[in-house]
């Protein structure tokens, strides 16, 4: 009595038709769809914002790194010619310089060591840096427990004592979430070798102290800053004679920089001169007491005003040797640039760590926001399923397969995710871009990471789609499993 149905399985609807049905469905429930899209936009905008910000900061940091280094050139040299390098700096130098570099040769000379000796020091220096890095990254509480009140290389001294080491090892074992970057045994071995390494570092420092003392003897009473003005000349030779490595270009840049600082100081000193102050106040129509340095610098950016200022200085008996209107203009402009560099230096300090240099905390926030977004989408889709149960059941009566129903919802979700992702990427980009433009101004123009930002935008869009699709899986399954007899309501 049983006959087999000659069923050719229901053909799958062409994708275009499915898309059409999904699209009309969305159009019909436009408000609900808009709300869902808004949720995705917010989450993706947040993600794009932090990604773009971090990418821009990194790009700016990279592009101005050299300039920032130049900014501190004078400070560095003054430090170098006044006192021996601290242990940490020496270790960093030893570990990071390429072999046979001049810097290493200089250190070798100071410590009375051969090139091979220095070479032998390098792996130990690397180990030391690893240890130092570990302690530096610890939060205050843990560091107090593990290392007491000490910091940096003094920790190594402290751990020489057997008892202290035992204490340290047991404390470390207790802190299960903490991972020491070396095997404890390897660290112990390093600590045993520390006294020797320390002695060699001290030797180098001793050599540096001697050289400094010799130079000081030559200088006599002249302040170092003043001496540096001639560093591209005789003083430079003296510095080299004392064993310091000083390239001619470096000497020239240094001399220029010192002269610039000197001139800036002279100009800024004019504010203390009542005559000059009065004249500026008259020009700017303020009280003399309200004249500020920024005001003077703004004045000097104009050539004519600069001329006028020089005249004012001379009138009041101030020394204007070496200053021209052109020079003043230059200095004013440089000062603006320098301030930008300083802002950049401050702002880009914390880049690094976490995903794409975003930082661990930000990564967490982004993940949480995406989770919330996913829950929101799932909720909206479930509501949609509940509302449309009759429609779904009817479609099944007409012959729709479960897979079709599911694909209807998934496609709708993907569509919303796409639109939301694009909107979010745009919003996030504008937000971050705007803020960064305000922060870095001119620096941004030369360093904008278009390629990276485009990649971040792509990630946001794709992520938006994926998020929407994944959130819609459960609601789609629910819809697909609906029984067609729900459409029948016979009283």
């Amino acid at each position, binding site marked *: 009595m*049983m006959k087999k149905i000659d069923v050719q*399985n229901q053909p799958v609807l062409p994708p275009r038709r499915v898309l059409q049905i999904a699209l*009309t469905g969305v159009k019909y429930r436009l408000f609900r769809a808009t709300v869902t899209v808004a949720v995705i936009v917010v989450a993706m905008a947040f993600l794009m914002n932090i990604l773009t910000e971090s990418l821009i900061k990194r790009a700016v940091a990279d592009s101005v790194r050299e300039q920032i280094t130049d900014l501190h050139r004078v400070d560095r040299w003054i430090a170098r010619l006044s006192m021996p390098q601290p242990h940490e700096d020496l270790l960093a130098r030893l570990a990071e310089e390429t072999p046979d570099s001049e810097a290493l040769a200089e250190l070798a000379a100071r410590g009375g060591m051969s090139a091979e000796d220095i070479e032998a020091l390098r792996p130990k220096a690397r180990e030391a840096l690893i240890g130092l890095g570990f302690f530096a990254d610890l939060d205050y509480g843990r560091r107090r427990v593990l290392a007491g009140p000490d910091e940096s290389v003094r920790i190594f001294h402290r751990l020489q004592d057997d008892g202290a080491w035992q204490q340290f090892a047991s404390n470390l074992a207790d802190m299960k979430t903490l991972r020491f970057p070396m095997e404890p045994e390897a660290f112990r071995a390093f600590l045993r070798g520390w006294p020797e390494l320390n002695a060699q570092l001290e030797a180098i420092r001793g050599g540096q102290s001697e050289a400094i003392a010799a130079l000081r003897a030559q200088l006599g009473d002249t302040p170092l800053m003043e001496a540096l003005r001639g560093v591209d000349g005789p003083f430079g030779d003296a510095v080299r004679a004392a064993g310091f490595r000083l390239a001619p270009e470096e000497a020239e840049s240094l001399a220029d920089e010192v002269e610039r600082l000197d001139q800036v100081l002279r100009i800024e000193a004019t504010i203390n001169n009542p005559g000059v102050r009065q004249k500026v106040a008259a020009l700017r129509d303020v009280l003399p007491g309200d004249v500020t340095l920024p005001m003077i610098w703004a004045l000097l950016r104009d050539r004519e005003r600069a001329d006028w200022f020089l005249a004012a200085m001379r009138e009041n008996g101030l020394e204007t040797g070496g200053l021209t209107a052109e020079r003043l203009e230059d200095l004013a402009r440089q000062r603006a640039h320098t301030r930008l560099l300083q802002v950049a230096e401050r702002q880009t300090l914390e880049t690094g760590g976490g995903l794409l240099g975003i930082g661990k905390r930000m990564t967490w926030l982004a993940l949480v926001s995406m989770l919330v977004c996913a829950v929101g989408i799932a909720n909206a889709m479930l509501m949609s399923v509940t509302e449309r149960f009759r429609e779904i059941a009817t479609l099944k009566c*007409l012959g729709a397969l*479960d897979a079709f129903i599911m694909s209807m919802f998934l496609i709708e979700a993907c569509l919303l995710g796409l639109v939301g992702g694009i909107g979010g990427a745009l919003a996030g980009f504008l937000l971050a871009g705007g803020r960064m433009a305000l922060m870095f101004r001119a620096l941004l123009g030369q360093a904008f990471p278009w390629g990276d930002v485009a990649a971040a935008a792509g990630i946001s869009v794709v992520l938006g789609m994926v998020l929407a699709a994944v959130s819609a899986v459960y609601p789609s399954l629910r819809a697909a499993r609906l029984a*067609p007899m729900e459409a029948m309501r016979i009283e």
Partner: protein
Amino acid sequence: MSTPDTISQAESPETASKRVIIRTVGMKKIYHRGEETTYALRGVNVEIYTGEFIVVMGPSGSGKSTFFNMIGALDSPSEGRVFIDEVDVAQLTAEELAFLRCRKIGYIFQSYNLIQYMTALENVTTPMAFGGVSPDEARKRGMDLLELVGLKERWFHRPIEMSGGQQQRVAIARSLANNPGILLCDEPTANLDHHTGDEILAILQKLNKERGVTTICATHDHRMMNICDRLMWIRDGDIERIARRDEVEVEVGHIE
């Protein structure tokens, strides 16, 4: 209690020569809720012939809707079997069931159940799309069907722009999309006024006579009894009585 053997299937000389299109054998539906056991259907034996117009009547909670779901391939019995066109419905896979619903059975609902965001034509052609008909052919057939129910000029209207009667007519056109052999109507005239209901009934009758579509209606509407071939009463999960229309009208004055 099941359908007693004493209840005749009310066969007539005509029906005896026709094929059975729906057959149920000992069909039961049992719901277990914890300790309680509810019998929605208690062993129903029915044979429905091709081209028949059958009206199913019964009070609420009598199992009428359960019965309808069973013979419409929307639900499967707990015990017993349902054969649609000699095919055991319970043995079918999900795809085969979808095929059945798409091509062999047409559904008409009390609340029309049209897709709100589709035009009348799109509503009618959706089952065709599921049935693998090409879009051009589907459109042509759809327009023909709309003409059959008298709504050709309104093919581009959405359900929200149509009256109840017009919507039901679109639903009828949709149910015929793939030329099914069976038409299942769930209270088609319940939401319509008297005059519109008459129109719908006229259409249903015309379809049944001209196309030979087996029509099974659940209704409270007495007018439908005039146009049907057989009547079926269900009470408490059993078939109380099956009678031919002429048998029933013999009882003058009122219907039992």
